[in-house]
């Protein structure tokens, strides 16, 4: 094997180990040096490209997205699948697109809720209860208040969610922690279920936005959801988005998610 051929083969696949390649490397010092440099660079390239670790819940997020899509397809009226004429097909197609658009929005909202819980999983283990004064302060930033007991609150903070500020609570459920997000400005068209292998709950629309109540699978979240929805009094001017941050004097945010 000639040196030219050796180097071409090596640059095509630096970790190739054909007998002729190895034989030439053993007898040609220059090519052996070239081989060492090339393989070192290839190792660096592999380390660079193969190293980034995905967030641990990426696969779960994908599964959730597919389940939401399955649900969206099942909710589509049966007649959408049986277009009889071109005009009907176009109309149905437009309705379907619109429904898909709405369902994609619900799917994205549910995903962001789960992602935020996972991203800030440490708050699930915050020992409670949180100081009542602290809870009142967090609500007061939004002109909101709790008009009754919603159970033990272990964690309360302002949070940035999908470019809007809201309230992140962790309540003590029957079996474990239950996350509650009060999301002003997030307005789903209906109650959106949240379901993954680990979590289940729902996102309930309200006049001012929505409330997400999510616990570990098996946790009966509905009684808590009813309490929270009925006892949260939201102010006339909720502090949302960047303007809200300015109003609250740039309070420290508990976390950030993005979609």
């Amino acid at each position, binding site marked *: 094997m000639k*040196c*030219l*051929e050796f*180097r*071409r083969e090596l*640059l*095509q*696949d*630096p970790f190739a180990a054909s007998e002729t390649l190895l034989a030439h490397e053993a007898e040609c010092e*220059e090519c052996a*040096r*070239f081989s060492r*440099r*090339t393989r070192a*660079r*290839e190792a*660096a*390239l*592999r*380390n*660079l*490209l*193969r*190293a*980034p*670790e*995905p*967030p641990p819940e*990426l*696969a779960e*997020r*994908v*599964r959730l*997205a*597919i*389940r*939401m*899509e*399955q*649900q969206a397809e*099942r909710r589509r009226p049966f007649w959408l699948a049986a277009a009889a004429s071109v005009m009907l097909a176009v109309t149905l197609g437009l309705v379907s697109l619109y429904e898909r658009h709405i369902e994609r929005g619900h799917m994205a909202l549910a995903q962001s809720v789960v992602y935020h819980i996972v991203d800030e999983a440490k708050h699930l283990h915050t020992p409670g209860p949180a100081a009542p004064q602290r809870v009142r302060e967090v609500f007061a930033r939004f002109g909101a208040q709790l008009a009754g007991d919603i159970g033990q609150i272990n964690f309360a903070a302002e949070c940035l969610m999908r470019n809007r500020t809201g309230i992140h609570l962790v309540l003590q459920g029957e079996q474990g922690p239950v996350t509650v997000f009060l999301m002003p400005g997030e307005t789903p068209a209906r109650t959106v*279920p949240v*379901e993954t292998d680990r979590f289940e709950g729902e996102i309930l629309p309200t006049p001012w936005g929505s409330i997400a109540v999510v616990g570990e699978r098996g946790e009966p979240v509905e009684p808590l959801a009813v309490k929270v929805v009925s006892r949260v009094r939201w102010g006339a001017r909720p502090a949302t988005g960047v303007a809200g941050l300015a109003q609250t004097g740039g309070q420290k945010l508990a976390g*950030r998610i*993005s*979609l």
Partner: protein
Amino acid sequence: MGKLSKQFDALVGALSPELYRYAMGLCHNPDVAQDLVQETFLRAWRSQETLRDVKTARAWLYTILRHEHARLYERQRPDVRDPHELPDVPVRGYDTSTEAFTLRRALQRLEPQYREPLMLQVVGGFSCKEIGNMLGLKPNTVLTRVFRARKMLHAMLGEDKQETAHEMP
């Protein structure tokens, strides 16, 4: 809600990490990379009846992701970062050393026709025949492209001057 088929569920679990790495290599943005992986599996799920052979699923998913990245880029020129910018949210395993920055920048400077086959070979471990099928190229063309890609990378990273004196291919 419905369950994913066992087979598809296994694909999601097994291939999400490497598809994420491939997406990061394309866009250098962890949020966009996650979106690309999610959209890839969604598209694959919608078309899973066209998947004849589970063994080819890997190549199929990489191809979908490539197309999704290209579509995203054409549509809205997403927040594809300059490789020298660090992700806002720390990414585990994301090398922030000077050497990594230099290598990343050099890789980004390669033309797509050279960078794409090289990344599929390095990240995906695909053979030249598989890469050829994915990119619509003959295997020999893929070999030439990865050879030239590495040659250009080495030149950008500063080859040993003795190599050039030894009549490089």
